[in-house]
């Protein structure tokens, strides 16, 4: 008697026909398979807010990078007889008490904001991801100790320490940059900016380190990593081929959201008078200078204030869009 539960089926010749040659080709077309980066880019392109923000960011970069070159004045040039001018054709943003053109100063300020944002984000990315990756890969006691350190730095109210660290390293840095030949190229950057970078390197990497460690721990348990390991892949191969590319999305998303926060902090410090030093202009210090003359010359405050808000807004919105595009699972809307 035939067993009803049996899966055995009698196969006869002619039950299976050979499929036409181009059958699989059509199948491939239907699945619409694209790589990770291409898929992310497509998702990003579909997000109108993110694309508009990207456009604004590019426009701001052009404004800050090329603008000062095209302007006939320099940021610290005091034009005689042009003091306290309201916005006009020659000076679209007006001039300040000393007759300096505000548009050039805003351009330089935007340049500083963008530099601070991007360089700080890179510093945070490098320190944070290396630290997180080491911690996650090492595991065991090393991991525990490294993560306790992260917890500690994380709970520090950073703005207090930033103020103190900034004050402490400002003077020694200035001496270093001026007197040691090796650091001369940094002179242009100014010790104030370098101090801000160092502060960022000290305090802000912990968020990134946590995220990268979490990713590494999660990825290490994935079957394909075990499979690659079983097939004889060394740890270097695993890191390069499997861990790094899969972490990249989160790393970039976190890094992009770090940019506006860094810009925010620089503007805050400059506003309190402990950021970049005069005659250098920052959007924060320009606003704080304008505050005293707010009665007679409100335009002086208007442009730097609008500019800094626009920069932070554009980076925030673009960062949100990028995070959603790189990791649709993380999407919370």
């Amino acid at each position, binding site marked *: 008697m035939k067993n009803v539960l049996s899966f055995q089926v009698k196969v006869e010749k002619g039950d299976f026909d050979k499929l036409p040659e181009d059958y699989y080709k059509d199948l491939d077309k239907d699945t619409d398979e694209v790589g990770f980066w291409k898929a992310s880019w497509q998702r990003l392109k579909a997000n109108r807010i993110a694309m508009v923000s990207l456009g604004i960011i590019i426009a701001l970069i052009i404004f800050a990078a090329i603008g000062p070159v095209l302007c006939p004045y320099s940021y610290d040039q005091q034009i005689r007889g042009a003091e306290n001018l309201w916005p006009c054709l020659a000076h679209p943003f007006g001039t300040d008490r000393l007759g300096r053109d505000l548009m050039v100063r805003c351009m330089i300020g935007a340049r500083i904001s963008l530099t601070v944002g991007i360089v700080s984000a890179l510093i945070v990315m490098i320190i944070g991801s290396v630290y997180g990756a080491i911690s996650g890969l090492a595991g065991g006691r090393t991991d525990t100790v490294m993560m*306790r350190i992260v*917890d*500690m730095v994380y*709970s*520090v*109210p950073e*703005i*207090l*320490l930033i*103020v*103190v*660290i900034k*004050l*402490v390293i400002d*003077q*020694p840095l200035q001496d270093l940059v001026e007197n040691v030949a090796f650091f001369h190229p940094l002179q242009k950057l100014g010790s104030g900016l370098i101090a801000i970078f160092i502060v960022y390197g000290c305090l802000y990497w912990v968020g990134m380190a946590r995220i990268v460690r979490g990713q590494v721990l999660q990825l290490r348990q994935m079957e394909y990593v075990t499979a690659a390991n079983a097939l004889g892949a060394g740890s270097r191969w695993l890191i390069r081929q499997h861990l790094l590319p899969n972490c990249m999305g989160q790393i970039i998303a976190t890094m992009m959201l770090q940019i*506006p926060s860094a810009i*925010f902090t620089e*503007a*805050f410090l400059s*506003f*309190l*008078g*402990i950021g970049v030093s005069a005659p250098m202009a920052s959007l*924060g210090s320009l*606003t*704080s200078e*304008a*505050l005293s003359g*707010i*009665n007679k010359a*409100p335009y002086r*405050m208007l442009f730097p*204030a609008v500019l*800094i*808000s626009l920069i*932070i*807004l554009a980076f*925030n*919105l673009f960062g949100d869009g990028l995070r959603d595009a790189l990791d649709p699972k993380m999407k*919370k*809307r």
Partner: protein
Amino acid sequence: MSVRAGRIIKRILLAALSLFAIITVTFFLMDLLPGDPFMSEKATEETRAILIRKYGLDKPVIVQYGKYLWNLLHGDMGTSYVLQKGRDIRTIMTESFAVSASLGVRALIYSILIGVPLGCVAGLFKGKGPDGLVRVVSAVGISIPGYVVAAVLMLVFSVKLKALPVSYGRPGGSVMPIIVLAMYPTCYLMRLTRASILEVLGQDYLKTERAKGMSELIVIFKHALKNSLIPVITYLGPLTASILTGGFVAESVFNVPGLGRYFVNAISARDYTLIMGVTVFYATLIITMNLVCDILYQIVDPRITLD
């Protein structure tokens, strides 16, 4: 001892360790600061030396550090060197913190009262008019630095409309500082609440409730809202920190005699003991708030581990 109690004790130890680290780091950084507090005085070398000896600044750093810690344990933070010469730091801080706290607490309450309900509304009406409005407002709100808010408010309400006084102390003088302090937290809370509501609305237990025939109102008010407010608790720690540091700007701009303005002034005057005092005090406050929030969060939602 239960696992949870163990975790909480570990968390408290970590907080204590962080606080100790902050005190230590700040103290040694302070020592590295260029110049000394008596630089600006029109004093001869001789009197300066006397002053330095009087305050024990000539002793080795490690001795000064030990002495500072010992005094701190007894609640003694020393006296101000520069800004209010000879006055006890504790008296200065109590006086000025009362001002900061009265503004800060009001800002905190307003931001919760405005931010959370608006976030709820946005989450419940996802994709519709109110949601769009809340999203735009909150995105713009978190992008505008506090000092810009302060400057714009000043321009509009005191310079143009002449409706509010520029400086603190006159009637209505606390309105603008409170708006400046509450702006960022309010907008952040809107986003947080909205995201949290959306996450809870997708959970299976709400489907179960509906399947059981509960009315939509009960589902939302009794089950969804309650659970979506839990993550908001964790933000209360950072919220306090944000309001305290926001005070640096708001108090400087509007001339509020609070602790934030003192901190900013103390920095430029190199008033070591005052800087130390404010740092230790603020750090303690923020770390304690974070600690309380974490523990509270764990008690309310036992699924969360403190790691």
